C-alpha cells in the first residue's frame, strides 16, 4: 500500500508551473501599463492595450485547439465577429449589460462552432484549414449583407456595455481593467481545461488518434467540444473589441484577422497558452511601432516572422526557454 501511494505521486511537470509563472508576469505588466501610460501622458495606449487584451484572449482560445488539439482553424475571426455583433444587436434592442452580451456572444459562437465543427472535423490537415476558412468567409459575407446593421459599412455603438447597471466601462481605464480581469479569468479556465481529464484526451488525440481509438476514445466528440469552447472564448474577445472600438463591422471577421490570430499563436509559441498572449502583445506592438517608421511595415513584420519561425520554432516561448527564463519539456 505504501508502495502504491509512493508511486502514484504525479510526475513533476515543470511546464505547468512555467506556464502559470509566465502568464503571471504578463498579467502584472498588463496591470502596470495604464498608470505608466498616464504618467507618460500617453493615455491613448490604454485603448491600444484593450485591443491587445482582446486579441490575446482570441489567440489563447485558438491555441487551445491549435496547440493542444492540432486543429488549425483558419476561420476564427468569425467568432470575433459574433462577439462584436452580439454587442451591436443587443444594444440595438436596449440591452447593454455586459454579462448578457457575453452570454449571447457565446451562444451564437457555440451554435456556429457546433455546426461548422461537426462538418470540418470530418477532414484533416490542409482540408480542415480550407473548410474552416470557407465557413469563416460565409459568416463574413452574411454580415456584409446584413443591411439592418450597416452591412459592409458597419454600425457605430451609442454607448459601451454596462456591468450590473453601472457604466464601469465608460472610461478607457475601466474597460481596460475589466478586459484584463476577463483575460486572467479565461487564462486560468484554459489552464485548468488543459490539465484536466478532458485536456489529456484532447492532447492525446493530437499525439496519436489511432492509439486513442485503440484504448476506447472516439476523438471526434472531444475535438468538437474543444472547438466549441474555443469559439465561445473567442466570442468574448469580440465583445471586448466592440466596446474598445465602439464600432462594429464585418472587417473584424475577414480572413486576414483569422490569419493574424494564427500568427499570434505561432509567434508566441504553439501549445503554451501564455505564449499566444505574449504573441498578441508582440504582433500588435510591432504593428504600431513599425507603422511609425514605414507604410510598408507589413513587409518588415513578414521578415521578422520568417526569422522567428526559422530560428525559434517555439516562438517567443522557445526564445525564453533557450535563455533559461522559462522551463519547458522540449
Amino acid at each position, binding site marked *: 500500500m505504501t508502495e502504491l501511494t509512493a508511486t*502514484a505521486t504525479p510526475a513533476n511537470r515543470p511546464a505547468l508551473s512555467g506556464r502559470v509563472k509566465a502568464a503571471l508576469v504578463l498579467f502584472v505588466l498588463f496591470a502596470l501599463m495604464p498608470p505608466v501610460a498616464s504618467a507618460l501622458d500617453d493615455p491613448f495606449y490604454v485603448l491600444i492595450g484593450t485591443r491587445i487584451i482582446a486579441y490575446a484572449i482570441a489567440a489563447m482560445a485558438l491555441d487551445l485547439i491549435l496547440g493542444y488539439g492540432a486543429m488549425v482553424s483558419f476561420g476564427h475571426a468569425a467568432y470575433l465577429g459574433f462577439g462584436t455583433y452580439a454587442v451591436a444587436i443587443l444594444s440595438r434592442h436596449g440591452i447593454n449589460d455586459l454579462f448578457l452580451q457575453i452570454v449571447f456572444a457565446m451562444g451564437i459562437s457555440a451554435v456556429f462552432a457546433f455546426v461548422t465543427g461537426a462538418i470540418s472535423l470530418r477532414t484533416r490537415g490542409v482540408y480542415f484549414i480550407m473548410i474552416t476558412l470557407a465557413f469563416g468567409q460565409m459568416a463574413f459575407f452574411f454580415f456584409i449583407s446584413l443591411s439592418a446593421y450597416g452591412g459592409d459599412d458597419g454600425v457605430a455603438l451609442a454607448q459601451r456595455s454596462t456591468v450590473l447597471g453601472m457604466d464601469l466601462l465608460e472610461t478607457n481605464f475601466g474597460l481596460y481593467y475589466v478586459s484584463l480581469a476577463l483575460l486572467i479569468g479565461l487564462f486560468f479556465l484554459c489552464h485548468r481545461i488543459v*490539465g484536466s481529464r478532458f*485536456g*489529456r*484526451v484532447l492532447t492525446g488525440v493530437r499525439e*496519436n488518434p489511432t*492509439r486513442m481509438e*485503440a*484504448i476506447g476514445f472516439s476523438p471526434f466528440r472531444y475535438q468538437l467540444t474543444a472547438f466549441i469552447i474555443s469559439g465561445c472564448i473567442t466570442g468574448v474577445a469580440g465583445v471586448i473589441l466592440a466596446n474598445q472600438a465602439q464600432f462594429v463591422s464585418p472587417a473584424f471577421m475577414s480572413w486576414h484577422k483569422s490569419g493574424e490570430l494564427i500568427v499570434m499563436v505561432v509567434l508566441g509559441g504553439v501549445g503554451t497558452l501564455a505564449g499566444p498572449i505574449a504573441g498578441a502583445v508582440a504582433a500588435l506592438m510591432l504593428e504600431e511601432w513599425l507603422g511609425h517608421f514605414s507604410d510598408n511595415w507589413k513587409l518588415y513584420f513578414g521578415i521578422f516572422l520568417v526569422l522567428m519561425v526559422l530560428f525559434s520554432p517555439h516562438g517567443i516561448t522557445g526564445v525564453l526557454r533557450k535563455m533559461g527564463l522559462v522551463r519547458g*519539456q522540449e
Partner: protein
Amino acid sequence: MTSLTVTGLNKSFGALKVTDDVSLSVEPGEFHAIIGPNGAGKTTLISQLSGQLRSDSGAVRLGDHDVSRLSMPERVRLGLARSFQITSVLPGFTALENVALAVQARDGSSYRFFGRVSDESPLNGEAMTALREAGLDRRAHVLAKSLSHGEHRRLELAIALATRPKVLLLDEPLAGVGGEDAEAFIENLRKLKGRFTMVLIEHDMDAVFALADRVSVLVYGRIIATGAPEEIRNDPEVRAAYLGEEEGEAA
C-alpha cells in the same frame, strides 16, 4: 471470461484477397497463437478483429455480442483490446500518462474540465499496476519518446492491459526484442495467461510454443491448420508451408 468467435471473415484490397474466409473459435481464457509467413495477412486479420479495418464480409463475436459493425472504440469499451506491432503510443506523454489515459477511457467520464488529472491517484495507481505487470514501472515518469525499443514494447502491453480487456489481441509484442529481454517479456506474458482470452501473433516460435494453448497457421489469408502446439509442429502441411523453412533457417 469471454470467447472470441470469427466466422467467414473476408477482406480484399483490390484484386488481392488478404483475408480469405477465416473462421476461428477462441475459448474463454485460451491463449491462442496465430503464426504464418510474412505477408500471410496476420496484422490485417488483427485489424479486422479490433475494428480498425472494416471487413468485406463475415462476423466477429465477442462472447454473446456481435461486434462486426462496431467501431474500434466501441469494441474496446466492450473489452476487445489490441496492441500494435509497430509501436503506437503518445510520444509526448510519460509512460504513466500513456497508461493512465487508458484507465481513464473506461473509468468514468472524460468530460471533466477542471480537476487536475495528474493528481488523480486512482488513475495513477491502476496505471502503475499495469506498468508493473508489463515490467516497466521503474520508467513510469519517462516520456514515451525517450524510451528504448524494448521499453516501447512493454508500454504497448501495459496500455492494452490498462483497458482491462476480456479479449486481448497482441500483434507481435516481441517484434525486435531479443535475448534476455525477450525471455523476460515471455515471462510477463506467461503470468497473464488465463486472466483473459488472448490472441497472439508472433514470429518468435519459442514464445509461441511456450505460451499458446492452441495455434492456428495462416497462409495467404487462409487458416490451413488449428491445433495444440505439438500437433501443429508435426503437421506435414504446416511444415511445408512455414515451419520447415523456419527450422531450416535455425539449423
